[in-house]
Every structure is written in structure tokens, then in C-alpha cells.
């Protein structure tokens, strides 16, 4: 049963890293600026998922706080970039 959980953890880490690579491709390729902001937002979410996976792998609750911080900063940065693209200024 240890082996099953380890295989599942390795598989999901591989999938999340692959998802981050796909986001990175869209971030580099994206024809408009809003595509890049969307890709960056998804990249933050994938990083949060990867922190959760590391927490399960190492059986440590510290990674939960990493995930919380990544979610918070990701939301703030996405909203700031979206506001900047819309108006040209962030705080009006």
C-alpha cells in the first residue's frame, strides 16, 4: 500500500509539473496580454497544487502555509495585472 501511494504521488507530481510547462508555453506564446495574465494565474494555481503535493509527500503541515501564501499572492497579482490591462492604472 505504501508503493501504491508513492506511485500516485509521483504520477501526480509529474502531471502538475507538465501542467506548469503547458502554462509556461502559453505564457511565452500568448498572442495578447490577457492570455499571458491568464496563463500566469493558472501557473500560480499549479504551484499551489504542487506545494500541497509536497506536503503529502513529506507528511509535513508546513507546506500548507506555503500553499496558502501562494494562493494569496497569486490572487493579488492576477487582479493587479487585470486592472492594469483594463485601465492603465491599478489603484484609481
Amino acid at each position: 500500500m505504501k508503493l501504491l501511494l508513492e506511485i500516485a504521488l509521483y504520477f501526480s507530481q509529474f502531471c502538475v509539473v507538465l501542467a506548469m510547462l503547458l502554462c509556461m508555453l502559453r505564457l511565452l506564446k500568448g498572442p495578447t496580454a490577457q492570455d499571458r495574465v491568464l496563463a500566469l494565474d493558472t501557473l500560480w494555481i499549479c504551484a499551489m497544487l504542487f506545494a500541497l503535493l509536497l506536503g503529502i509527500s513529506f507528511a509535513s503541515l508546513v507546506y500548507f502555509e506555503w500553499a496558502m501564501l501562494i494562493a494569496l499572492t497569486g490572487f493579488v497579482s492576477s487582479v493587479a495585472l487585470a486592472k492594469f490591462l483594463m485601465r492603465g492604472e491599478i489603484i484609481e
Partner: protein
Amino acid sequence: MMQVPVDISPWLAIPVALLLICGSIITLVGTLGLLRLPHFYQRIHGPAITITFGAGSFLLASMLYFTVLQQRLVIHELLISAFIMLTAPVTAMLLMRTAVYRDLRNGRQRPDIKPETPAASGQATTAEVKQHRPDGENK
């Protein structure tokens, strides 16, 4: 490397492994949609499944695993899920409004609408937006 306990019971390992595999496949599908779909207004639907189902599966797996492992109720992952559920629609709505606004300001049509006279309607919407913002920022 991994700190998985040796004597983990099958009743914990099987649901956690299933949730992890399900969540990772859903995450991959969502980002594949982000990469493959042709227009921005279709592309923004891809990561929604990553944010809801993918993150939900991972958070549920984490809650289950730590609750059984530490033999107490560990549900502080609910904080992250509530935060994600609150903030993901806000980000998506802001991004969509940004995209509509920028497309109108640049005189581009939405790609899924075929206008009958494309030049005229594009000019009309651009003039309307310029009238709305008279300082002439048409980047």
C-alpha cells in the same frame, strides 16, 4: 525521499491515491485546454476546471491523509478551498472584462461573431469607446 509510512492501511491509501490521480489528470486537462483552444474567450474556460475540480481533489486528499495520519481532525485545507472558491470568479470576471474592453478599444470583433459589415461595426464600436474615454488612449 518520500515520508510515506510503511504500515499505511489500504482504507487510507486507496482513496487518497484515487483522489490524487483524478485531480492530477483534471489539472492536466485544464491546462491542455488553456494551451490548445483557439480564442481567448474559449481559453478562459480551460483553467476553471483546474481551479475547481483539480484543486478540490487535491485538498480533499490532503485533508483525508492528514486526518488519518495525525489521528485528529485536520481541516484547515478548507481555508484554501474557500479562498479559491471566492477569488477564482473574481479573477476570471476581471480578466474577461479586460479582454472585452481591450478588444473594443482596439476595434477588434469577438472572434465567434461574424458581423455583416465588419469594417462599419468595428468603426462604430471603436468610436463609441473613444467617446466614452475622450483622452484617446487607444493602444
